[in-house]
């Protein structure tokens, strides 16, 4: 190829390239715009798609949540921050027999006089107090356990959920169990009294003279039988506590007198055990308290029996009573074996006995403190203790000085 020709053609082609480039440049400006536009459109579409997807997802989630709420076996009532009902599930409609549309937007306090709403009305008419597993009766056949849960999102409370949990079946089973124990205990009493009477007549010589070693054996069986009767009585007390028909005929009574009668009845046991005993009475008279005297006597007796039983001979048991115008405090301290720290939480449980005392002796049913706690609490009082293993225990109970019966007959 000749050189100049080449140059010429080179120049030409350069020109073409330049033009082309220009063309391309012009074109690319347009194209870039289009492409940008296209890109934006695509991005927008993507966003829209994402939004749609998110919306669908949210809808699905919402539907899922709604379906969970709808199909929960518990009734749910959702209230907004002003206490107005914003949602309730079919289960609550069924329980309350009021359709959702008649409930939404109203407050619980608006349902005065609506029969099935009455228990909830009573609970929440003034305020939405927080409640945990409170038992209520909607009617004779429907018992609920009500709890409230605050709805809190990032620190702000924007409403409350009321949960209505049906416990009718549990209650029925519980009642059947209680009735069974009660019936069994009653049935057991018949042969136990026959044994008691037969042995007693033997001991009294109704069947002729008995010699010393015979008497010794017969007395042992009599004692064992008495223990059995005591156990059955404890069981019966418990069934009555569980049936909620425990307190009977409360009257104004003096706790000092009641305590004295228990102490008097325990004199023999105190002497036999060889423990020192002191009853520190307050210098002034104490106010009389509404009480089921027999039951309070039983509570004190259980506390005193424990103190004597678990205090080694040479130890000391002290009872003291003090009062102000609102309450009376009973206190019983001992220098006994104490309650192991890790078991202190369980001490008022039914059938519970400390590991250190089960080693000590087999007697004791583990029911005494459970019964005492229920008696005191049924009177609107409270019971507590301090204890150190190896050093002793102090049990306290408080009884409120009140004259109103309503307050007194607290439900269990």
């Amino acid at each position, binding site marked *: 190829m000749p050189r100049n020709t080449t140059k010429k053609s080179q120049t030409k082609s350069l020109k073409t390239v330049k033009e082309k480039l220009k063309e391309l440049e012009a074109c690319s400006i347009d194209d870039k715009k289009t492409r940008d536009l296209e890109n934006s459109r695509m991005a927008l579409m993507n966003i829209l798609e994402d939004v749609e997807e998110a919306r669908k997802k949210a809808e699905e989630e919402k539907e899922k949540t709604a379906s969970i709420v709808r199909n929960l076996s518990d009734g749910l009532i959702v209230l907004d921050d002003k206490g107005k009902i914003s949602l309730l599930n079919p289960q609550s409609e069924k329980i309350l027999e009021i359709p959702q549309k008649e409930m939404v937007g109203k407050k619980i306090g608006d349902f005065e006089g609506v029969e099935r709403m009455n228990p909830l009305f009573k609970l929440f008419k003034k305020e939405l107090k927080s409640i945990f597993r409170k038992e209520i009766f909607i009617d004779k056949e429907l018992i609920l356990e009500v709890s409230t849960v605050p709805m809190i999102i990032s620190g702000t409370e924007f409403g409350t959920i009321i949960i209505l949990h049906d416990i009718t079946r549990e209650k029925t089973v519980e009642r059947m169990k209680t009735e069974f124990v009660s019936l069994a205990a009653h049935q057991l*009493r018949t042969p136990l*009294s026959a044994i008691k*009477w037969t042995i*007693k*007549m033997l001991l009294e010589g*109704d069947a002729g003279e008995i010699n010393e070693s015979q008497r010794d054996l017969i007395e042992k069986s009599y004692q064992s039988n008495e223990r059995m009767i005591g156990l*059955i*009585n404890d069981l019966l007390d418990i069934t009555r506590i569980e049936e909620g028909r425990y307190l*009977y*005929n409360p009257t104004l009574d003096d706790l000092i007198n009641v305590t004295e009668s228990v102490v008097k009845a325990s004199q023999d046991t105190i002497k036999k055990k060889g423990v020192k005993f002191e009853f520190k009475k307050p210098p002034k008279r104490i106010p009389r308290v509404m009480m089921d005297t027999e039951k309070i006597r039983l509570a004190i007796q259980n506390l005193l029996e424990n103190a004597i039983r678990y205090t080694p001979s040479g130890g000391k048991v002290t009872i003291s009573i003090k009062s102000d115008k609102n309450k009376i405090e009973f206190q019983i301290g001992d220098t006994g074996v104490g309650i192991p720290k890790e078991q202190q939480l369980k001490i008022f449980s039914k059938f519970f006995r400390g590991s250190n005392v089960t080693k000590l002796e087999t007697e004791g049913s583990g029911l005494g403190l459970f019964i005492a706690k229920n008696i005191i609490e049924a009177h609107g009082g409270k019971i507590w203790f301090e204890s150190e293993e190896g050093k002793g225990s102090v049990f306290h109970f408080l009884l409120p000085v009140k004259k109103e019966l309503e307050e007194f007959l607290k439900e269990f």
Partner: protein
Amino acid sequence: MAKILLIEDEEIMIGLLQKKLVQSGYEVIVARNGLEGMDAMRKEKPDLVLLDIIMPKMTGFDVMEKKNEDKEIRDIPVIIISNSGQPVEIDKAKRMGVRDWLIKTEFDPQEVLEKVKKQIN
């Protein structure tokens, strides 16, 4: 000799109480349920009735109710001897005119005898 009517369905209890009461010089008539008890009360006019509560046919409460309706036997004193002894039951029985209430697991024959003596004198 004072006459005591024992209305009770438990054979062992009947045996024990009868033995104790006869030993102490009382005449004892036994009825094994409420119905028999009513008949015996009308026929024998006892000085005292020992009455169980839980019995077949007629309970002790039924017996008290019927007895209170009958002028002839209304004033015969009654002591309840029962396995149970709820304050509610005792109150109800006292309102029906019962003189005393003994819970079998809490009393023994000797104490029953003392209660009987108190009512008959």
